[in-house]
């Protein structure tokens, strides 16, 4: 009987029992998938993106399937940070794993405000800053596409919380390394790579965009090779831990990111297709480590063999 491998990793001071995290906006407010497994078994949970005020989201259609991809323009529909803390969080007492909030705003001031609000909420283990939301009209791109702006947002959030701050980058930039370095020096304790890629689809019959919002964010297997490349670029440019996100459907995909250098991974679109995707990845990674005699998953992180 082999001894159990140690899957625990540390993300910006936050120790999690395994590297599998659910991606923001793809796991609801953390309790929707309870009928399928106990979320306590996940490394961590990142809840739906929250804004200071509740947001209704975009008019439908909000999603459309593309080849091996999902194009979405949800428009960050959410109940607002206050309602989340007051009404949703208490119902999550039974979930024994770190809960990370993903925050989004149009103004740096609001980012800071949200950080303040979260600071004294013990149940929230860390903050992931979404500076990359592509599918909200008039420039959700702004913050994430310029190193200085990205750094300023990071700085303001870091100044207003003692919790680990994870910055989630947008892939829609020329040089993601410069953004990564900027947020690192601004005090980010970890970086998530990547958010969705900007995309569009047209209904040939009506000649209208398939999404009411015209533009959407592309996720799913289609983006995996690009997300993997971006993670490769970021890990070779910063010292803080990187969380790999993008098209991860199974443990093999997860391993690709971990081998390239991701300290943890996020499962997004896969949750929609296979509600057990995240927990199966935890289990399959465990089996893999046993099979390959890897006693500690940290031995694999960044083990990419460039010959």
């Amino acid at each position: 009987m082999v001894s159990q491998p140690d899957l625990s990793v540390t993300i910006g001071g936050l120790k999690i029992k395994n590297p599998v995290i659910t991606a923001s906006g793809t796991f609801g407010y953390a309790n929707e998938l309870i009928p399928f497994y106990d979320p306590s078994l996940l490394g961590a949970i990142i809840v739906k993106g929250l804004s200071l005020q509740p947001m209704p989201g975009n008019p439908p259609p909000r999603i459309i399937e593309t080849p091996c991809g999902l194009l979405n323009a949800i428009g960050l529909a959410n109940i607002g940070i206050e309602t989340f803390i007051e009404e949703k969080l208490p119902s999550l007492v039974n979930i024994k794993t770190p809960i990370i909030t993903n925050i989004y705003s149009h103004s740096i001031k609001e980012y800071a405000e949200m950080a303040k609000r979260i600071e004294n909420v013990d149940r929230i283990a860390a903050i992931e800053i979404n500076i990359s939301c592509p599918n909200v009209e008039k420039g959700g791109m702004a913050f994430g596409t310029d190193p200085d702006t990205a750094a300023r947002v990071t700085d303001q959030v870091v100044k207003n919380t003692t919790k680990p701050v994870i910055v989630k980058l947008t892939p829609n930039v020329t040089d993601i390394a410069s953004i990564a370095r900027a947020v690192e020096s601004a005090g980010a304790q970890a970086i998530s790579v990547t958010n969705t890629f900007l995309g569009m689809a047209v209904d040939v019959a009506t000649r209208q965009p398939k999404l009411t919002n015209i533009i959407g964010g592309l996720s799913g297997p289609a983006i995996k090779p690009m997300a993997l490349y971006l993670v490769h670029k970021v890990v070779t440019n910063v010292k803080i831990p990187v969380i790999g996100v993008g098209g991860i459907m199974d443990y093999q995909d997860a391993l690709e990111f971990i081998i390239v250098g991701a300290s943890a991974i996020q499962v997004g679109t896969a949750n929609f297709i296979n509600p057990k995707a995240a927990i199966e990845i935890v289990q399959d990674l465990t089996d893999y480590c046993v099979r390959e005699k890897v006693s500690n998953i940290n031995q694999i992180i960044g083990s990419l063999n460039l010959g």
Partner: protein
Amino acid sequence: MQSSQVEYSLFLSNQHFLKVSSFFMNEVLEETVSIKFNRQIGKDTWLMGFRSANLASLAKPGQFLMVHLGRTTKDPLLRRPFSIHRIQDNNQLMLLYKIVGKGTLLLSCLKKDDSISVLGPLGNGFTISKPHKKTLLIAGGMGVAPLFFLAQSLHKVQKQKITMFLGFSTSQEVILINELKDLNIDLSLTTEDGSLGITGLVTDLLDEYLRQELNQLSTIYACGPIPMLKKVAQIAITSNLRCYVSLEGRMACGLGICQGCAVKANNNKNKPYYYVCQDGPVFSSEMIDWQVM
């Protein structure tokens, strides 16, 4: 070490699963089922049957399943939603589907003993109305899929005869006439081109029917194209009748986590949009903002 042992234990004890699932309002299963039959019954229209005692026992009329063709290929990527069309012998479920694209085309290629993954039962389902009053079912095209299951159930509890208006665009699309007659339903068939039954739309029959039956009628159940549902909802409101409509929406998850399947709520302050997979697919007609539909 410790932590991973915890994870591990999950997979050793299935009770664990059962325990946690009790948190949830209604149980949802993911099953890989093997197809018993899959045959064309009308123009681009197919009927598929498979066995699942568990799903059959849980399913309520108006609920739906998310169907996946398997993970070897990632295209189509997402599951596809289909209403539970019929339940037979308490263990066989049937889907009635129209080929409109990639997923349904591939579904129609599956043969007996091929397997699919089904997730469900999902959604709220129809609220069954008072058995001592009349009910009217209005189905446009594939809208008949969930209403057949509803008719099956009503047939058991209903004292009064059930009326159904069934509309198609042309005769080649007409299906299920005999099966519906077997449920001893008072059936009116329409086709837009008049190639079979009454010429026109199902909604054309409504005014005349209501003039006679209005006060014996308790509830209208409708499923079909948006323009049809719009019309039905409007008439129901003016004659202040209880009316339930079953809606569709672009779905990624069917579980309430993607927020894809939004429909605009009719002035609801704290809920601007309903989610078809969670708050629906069945809605009381006045809940929906029909202007934007």
